[in-house]
């Protein structure tokens, strides 16, 4: 007991010494961190402080605003679900198997995240536009992407799907390959191994990827505006209002968006934190 107290005291003294020595470093860290934080905090603070509560309430009951926000949440959720259904198997293919072209596929998945978003929008229109081959076939069945919610989803999907694939891929890669071998010798086929071993062990990372995908999708403007300026999503409505009615009229909408997005995002983060214990 006594010996313990002695070491404890020594440690404290050591810590104080090293604190003094690294003071300069903390000043350096603090200086740059405060500036970095200001970049984020200042715009948020200004929006909160410069908006009248009355104006906020007015836009909160505005039918156009509500339907744009609903359209954003609806399309981003749809995008996330489609990404999950198709992205998780693709991620598993890349993570688990070695085949010719695997590295190429791995690299291609990154491309959308590197493009300017308007360029991405042009690419989506080039496939799904009503006068393009695939778009023409689909529109003859009454499925049109120009200025419909399907177009919004297509644009969001192209840009946000990679986030899901990458987080799922990294999670699958982290699973100990001996678990798969053990499962096989215990009688498991590949379906069992995928659904009972890989998927549950990667669920946390996949859900985190889904939240990222959702966030990326709901904030997309450039690509969405190219293929489907209407029906308005929240980002397009903000742009439209700003261009036609000016800054003062737009601010309350932006504040409302910030509040709603934050609330949903925090909720999803909580949800994705549910882990197998």
């Amino acid at each position, binding site marked *: 007991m006594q010996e313990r107290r002695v070491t404890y005291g020594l440690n404290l003294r050591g810590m104080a010494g090293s604190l003094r020595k690294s003071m300069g470093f903390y000043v350096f860290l603090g200086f740059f961190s405060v500036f970095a934080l200001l970049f984020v905090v200042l715009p948020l603070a200004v929006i909160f402080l410069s908006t009248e509560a009355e104006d906020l309430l007015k836009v909160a009951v505005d039918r156009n605003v509500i339907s744009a926000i609903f359209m954003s949440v609806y399309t981003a959720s749809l995008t996330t679900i489609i990404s999950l259904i198709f992205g998780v198997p693709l991620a598993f293919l890349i993570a688990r198997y070695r085949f010719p072209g695997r590295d190429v596929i791995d690299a291609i998945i990154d491309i959308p995240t590197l493009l300017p978003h308007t360029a991405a929008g042009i690419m989506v229109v080039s496939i799904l536009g009503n006068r393009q081959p695939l778009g023409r076939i689909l529109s003859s069945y009454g499925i049109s992407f120009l200025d419909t919610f399907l177009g919004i989803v297509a644009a969001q999907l192209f840009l946000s799907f990679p986030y899901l694939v990458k987080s799922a891929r990294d999670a699958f890669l982290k699973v*100990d390959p*001996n678990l798969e*071998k053990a499962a*096989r*010798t*215990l009688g*498991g086929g590949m379906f069992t191994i995928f659904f*009972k071993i890989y998927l549950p062990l990667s669920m946390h990372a996949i859900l985190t990827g889904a939240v990222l995908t959702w966030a990326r999708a709901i904030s997309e403007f450039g690509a969405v505006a190219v293929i489907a300026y209407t029906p308005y999503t929240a980002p397009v409505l903000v742009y439209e209002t700003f261009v036609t009615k000016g800054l003062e009229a737009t601010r309350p909408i932006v504040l409302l968006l910030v509040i709603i997005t934050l609330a949903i995002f925090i909720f999803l983060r909580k949800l994705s934190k549910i882990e197998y*214990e």
Partner: protein
Amino acid sequence: MLELKGISKSWEEFKLRNVNLKIYDGEYFVILGPTGAGKTLLLETIAGLHKPDEGEIWFEGRNITLTPPEHRKIGIVFQDYALFPHMTVRENILFGLRLKKIPRGEAEKRLHSMASMLKIEGILHRYPRTLSGGEKQRVALARALVLQPKLLLLDEPLSALDEEIRRSLWDELRSIHEKLGITTIHVTHDQTEAVALADRIGVMNQGSIVQVGTPQEVFRNPRTEFIARFTGFENIYEGHASESGGITMVKVGDVEIASTDTKRGKVKVCIRPEDITLYHERPDSSARNVFQGVISNVSDRGPLVRLKVRSKLEFIVLISKKSFVEMKLKTGSPVYLSFKASSVRLI
């Protein structure tokens, strides 16, 4: 019976080269070899996790070379145990039973009899990360054995455990083996473990099985210098053997060593350090081989002491700590050493 016929396989940096091996029903067979010898690859190939490049695997009269692992009735325990971290001990053990669609009642019965045999009833509700190494080991064994496999494969099952737990698990593995009568192949790099457990040993080096036999055969009569070294013949000298008066005399430099082996010509002389005895005075014994020397190095090995004795040759000698203390030996002590001609192996 499990029979490997000319198995070759190349996988990552590991290789199997023309492995031929017969393992009999009910046998406890230990594959002994250094790290990188291909032991794990061999085991996983037997389990069906790798397809051999060449050769065939026969099991109970059937060619199972291409049978997928889930249909082989072979259980395996991995070196890192490979317990499913998101399942409780109970779920881990039931995993295979559920896949085999064993009815619930029967599955519960098997789970509990296995848990009681391996003394893990108390931890069934826990998750693997909360278990000690020894507990994980038992759970991995239970998970494999509960499916009543015809063959049990153990990949360095004890290498991650403390010395004390290892020794108690040796006894337990033997007693489980005897209770269930299950044919077992156990891979290890530890010669003491091999001797403690094996009915027969197969020594493996660079992807080949280089010698097969009972522990006595392998440890008394190593076939190559590699096996001799690996099984603890620490004194190995090159020499020339010829017959002289009904016994083999080997000229090593300017000394002669007597051996009861009958090999002639260029040989390797191999002597185990524990077969050498030390004396203060020239021994008046029947031993043919007596040398005078000086202790040049002492190192403590628990109950044993390892000495280097500089003589005309340098010898490594293992003696008990008790006799080391009684003889008041230390670095620089002059000693006589002797060993029987029957302890000298010629390769």
